[in-house]
Structures are given as structure tokens and as C-alpha cells.
């Protein structure tokens, strides 16, 4: 089983690295991160701060864009291009196919984020700024976040068109990132029944805010990647939550995919 999942994953990764659009996205991401060199010059002795902010923002933005752009096409393209017709009759289970596609996408994102991170570290080194553990922890959290977004994209693409899947996934991302504010709004509702229903429904949404905490209050303390940031135990807890959420999304995707007719 593992061998078949790995074979599909490696093939998905190969598809991604031969996709010119992804290179364009990566190029713009690197350009954005590299622009920190120029912007840093304009700041007053805050080069490292500008570089880290711009770098992490760029990695998160392009990571999520790639996750949505490729993720929503991941399963749909196989059906649309009919490539699934020659794959499913091979001795594979349908869940292996979904896991393989997802695995390949995660591998692609890991490599993309590694390249963007390498550019960020190179610029920090060039500026003579230290590469703190906080930046590494922030990048790990961004990676877990894009894994969750990918799983959501795969879930939608297992039953919907790429356009709708993209819109749904983007919507989930925006709502997931704003979950604390959304919950705040819900608590202010006067209608108790509605408030309870809405509050319960937010439990189904992914809390993506926990992966991008720099600049927010955490346990009564201001967390910032430049000074006091979350520790590794926070990263571990958030990762368990993220991977659990992604696993649930994949289980639903597999259930939908396993009963589907390929006409």
C-alpha cells in the first residue's frame, strides 16, 4: 500500500515540478522576499524586521496561493483529463489514490517553502542579521497551515469544479484566519439560539489564525516573531490540531471519492 501511495505522490510531485505556472509563482515569491533588500534600506536600521515580515508574509501568501491553485485541480484534473481511467483499474484502492495525490502536493509545498525560506535566510545573512529560532518556528507553522488548506482544497475538488473549489477554499482560508474576530462578533449576538448555533458551527471551521500569531495577543502576552514568540510546544500543539483537521478533511474527501462514478 505504501509503495503505491509513494508512486502516486512522486508522480504528482513530478507533475508540479514540470508545471511552468508554479515556477512563475515561485519567481514572484522570491522577488517579493528579495525586495526586502531594497525596502530594508529605506527603513531606519530596521532591515532585519522588514526582511522577516516581508519574507514570512511572502512565504505564507504564496504557499497558500500554490496550495489553492494546485490543490483544487489535483483530483479534478485527473477526472477531466481521464487519466484516472487508466489508474483506477490498476491494483490500487481509491483512498490510496487520494492519499498519493495529497502526499505529492505536500511534498511540492515543502520544497517550495524550503526554497522561499532559503532565499529569506540568505537575505538575512547578507544583511548580517541573525536567523532566530522564532523565524524557523513561524515557517513550520506556515507549512502546517498550507497543509490544512491543501486538504480543504482536495476535499472540495473531490466533488466540485476547480472554480467553485477555489472559491470555497479561499473562503475557508479567509474565515479560518479571522476566526477569533468572527467568534467575537458571534458573542455579541442577542439571539441566544442563533448565537449557540453559529458558535457551534465555528467549531467545524479550521482555526488558521493559530498558525499566524505574530502580532496578536496570546495568553495575555503580545507575540511577535521579532521578540517574544511562541515556543516549540505551541508549534507541536498547533501542528497536531492542523494535521488532525487535514486528516478529517481527507477522510471526507475519500468517502466522497470512493462512491463516485467515473463516466
Amino acid at each position, binding site marked *: 500500500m505504501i509503495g503505491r501511495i509513494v508512486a502516486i505522490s512522486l*508522480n504528482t510531485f513530478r507533475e508540479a515540478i514540470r508545471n511552468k505556472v508554479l515556477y512563475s509563482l515561485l519567481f514572484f515569491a522570491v522577488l517579493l522576499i528579495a525586495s526586502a533588500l531594497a525596502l530594508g534600506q529605506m527603513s531606519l536600521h530596521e532591515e532585519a524586521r522588514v526582511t522577516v515580515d516581508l519574507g514570512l508574509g511572502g512565504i505564507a501568501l504564496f504557499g497558500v496561493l500554490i496550495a489553492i491553485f494546485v490543490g483544487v485541480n489535483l483530483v479534478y484534473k485527473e477526472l477531466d483529463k481521464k487519466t484516472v481511467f487508466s489508474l483506477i483499474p490498476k491494483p490500487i484502492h481509491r483512498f490510496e489514490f487520494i492519499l498519493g495525490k495529497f502526499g505529492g502536493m505536500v511534498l511540492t509545498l515543502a520544497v517550495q517553502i524550503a526554497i522561499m525560506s532559503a532565499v529569506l535566510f540568505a537575505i538575512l545573512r547578507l544583511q548580517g542579521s541573525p536567523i532566530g529560532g522564532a523565524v524557523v518556528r513561524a515557517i513550520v507553522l506556515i507549512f502546517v497551515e498550507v497543509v490544512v488548506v491543501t486538504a480543504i482544497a482536495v476535499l472540495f475538488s473531490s466533488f466540485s469544479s476547480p472554480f467553485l473549489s477555489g472559491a470555497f477554499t479561499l473562503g475557508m482560508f479567509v474565515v479560518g484566519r479571522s476566526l477569533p474576530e468572527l467568534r467575537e462578533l458571534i458573542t455579541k449576538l442577542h439571539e441566544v439560539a442563533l448565537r449557540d448555533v453559529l458558535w457551534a458551527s465555528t467549531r467545524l471551521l479550521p482555526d488558521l489564525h493559530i498558525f499566524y500569531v505574530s502580532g496578536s495577543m496570546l495568553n495575555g502576552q503580545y507575540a511577535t516573531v521579532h521578540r517574544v514568540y511562541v515556543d516549540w510546544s505551541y508549534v507541536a500543539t498547533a501542528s497536531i490540531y492542523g494535521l488532525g483537521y487535514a486528516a478529517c478533511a481527507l477522510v471526507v474527501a475519500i468517502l466522497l471519492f470512493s462512491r463516485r*462514478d467515473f*463516466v
Partner: protein
Amino acid sequence: MTHDVIVSAEKLEKVFALGFLRKKVRAVREVSFEVRRGEIFGFLGPNGAGKTTTLKMLMGLIFPTAGTARIFGEPVPSIAAKRRLGFLPENPYFYDYLSGEELLDLMGRLFGLGRAERKRRAGLLLERVGLGRAGARSMPLRKYSKGMLQRLGIAQALINDPELVILDEPMSGLDPIGRKEIRDLIRELKDEGKTVLFSTHILSDVELICDRVAIVVGGRLRDSGPLDQLLSPRLLHTEVVLEAGGQKEAVRLAPELDVDEALRQALAAGKKVVAVTPRRESLEDLFVREVESGDVGAGAEHQTPREAAS
């Protein structure tokens, strides 16, 4: 079920629910047939008859609404059965960013073949289907012609050295030479002891290579069995070609007429007999008879969802 039945379909039925109103489209109705070990079985029918839908149900691509199907005695879809078969989909589409060699390597991996074995089989199969030259092996599939893709499709169906080969319209889109090569390949597979089930609407292919056939029209199985048993042995007519004064004339004599008497009369009238050909039922006659007696005029009733949507 006897031990030499490789594929059995029993009252297979598929109803698709299409569109917003979930309109029911019955693509396959109570189709039953058996494919026996070592034979070439032709699944014959006009376009939109339900051949591809039936094969997709056997391959686990589509779930039957009713009925059962077994391959190697296992209810479909079965991983154990899939290990022992190869499948060529209709108008095969593959990952166009891969080369022929890479595609076969991927398919070999799905069967759990080792690296050396994958390389060996890929080389042999590419050679066998006429894609062995270096340019074709390493060229990305987006540059392949339709005929090349069809050949590669057959190669990938054979990567696991299967006992059963199922080919959906293997000759479609090929020129006469290509079709002959595929027919020869199917015969070779039979000689190697493999069982071949293939669908087609090209009658000559069936007539030339099939041991047994099933005819599907409008989603229903109209007839199945050995070709010589399906074709009526009765005389349809006798065609007589006569020549008089340099002019040739063909006459069709009904089966109840006395041919000897007709020839005597022609000779007495000073005509020369050029040819006398008794015509019995051909596969084409049988096919037309089945299609005409079937309710193919029901239109969308027998279309696949893709056809209905187009």
C-alpha cells in the same frame, strides 16, 4: 460457474441520474455474458450501445445500479483480480508531462514491480508496440500522435504480464496498418495463453479474430456466442453475374428459386455465366438485423452521461 470462466457479468444494469432534475438515463440493462479462459471475446455494438459503460463497471470505474460481475471469481472491484488483468481505456489519456518510459515505470510501480523488472518490461513492451526507437521512448506524451498513444495504452495494459487483457475500442483512431498490427498483437496474446476481451464497433476486426462475441444494442445484450452459431446458416440469396454482348449484368436469385434452372435459361438465351455466389448471413447482416430489431431510436435513453451532456 465453471472453472474456466474468467469474466462473468450477470444482469448488469446502470442507470445514471443526470442534470439538476436528476433525469434517469438507463445506459445498460440486464447485460449478462461470460468470457472463458484463453479466448478472444468481442464486445460488439454501435456507438452509445453501452459497451464502455459495461467495461467500466468491470473495471470498478462505475458502480452498477443492479447485477453482479466477477473477474477470476472475485466480485468487482477486487485488488486481487486487478493484479492479474490489464486494461486499455477508450481513447486513452495519460499524463502528458511524462515520457512513454516514465509512464510504464509508474504503472509498473503500481503493480509493485522492482526497478530492474520495470525497466526490462518497459523496454520490451515499447519495442513490441512499435515505440522502441529512442525518440519515441523519451518524448513527452503531449507530442504523441493518437496512434502512438493507443500503442502506449496497450503497452501499459501489458506491464504486469496479465492473464486477462481488456481493451476498450483498441482499434479506434488507427489507420488500416495500425489496426492490422493491433489485431496481430491480440492474436499473439491469445497464443501466449492470455484471455482477451475487447469492445469494438468495427465488424471486420471481430470477424477476423474473435472466438466468441456479444452484441449490445441500446444497452441490452442482443446475442452472444461463437460467431458461426450466431450467423444464420440459411441462404439469403444467390448472386449470378451474366455477360451478353460485352455487357455484364448481376442478378439476385431468391433462395426458393431453382438456380440450375435459371442458369439453363440464361445459357439458352445466349448469355455467358461469369460468376455464381451463394450469399449466407455475414456478421454485418447479423449486426444490422440486431440493430434494426433493437430500440436504438430511443435516443438519449442509451447515451452515456458524457454523450448526453455533449
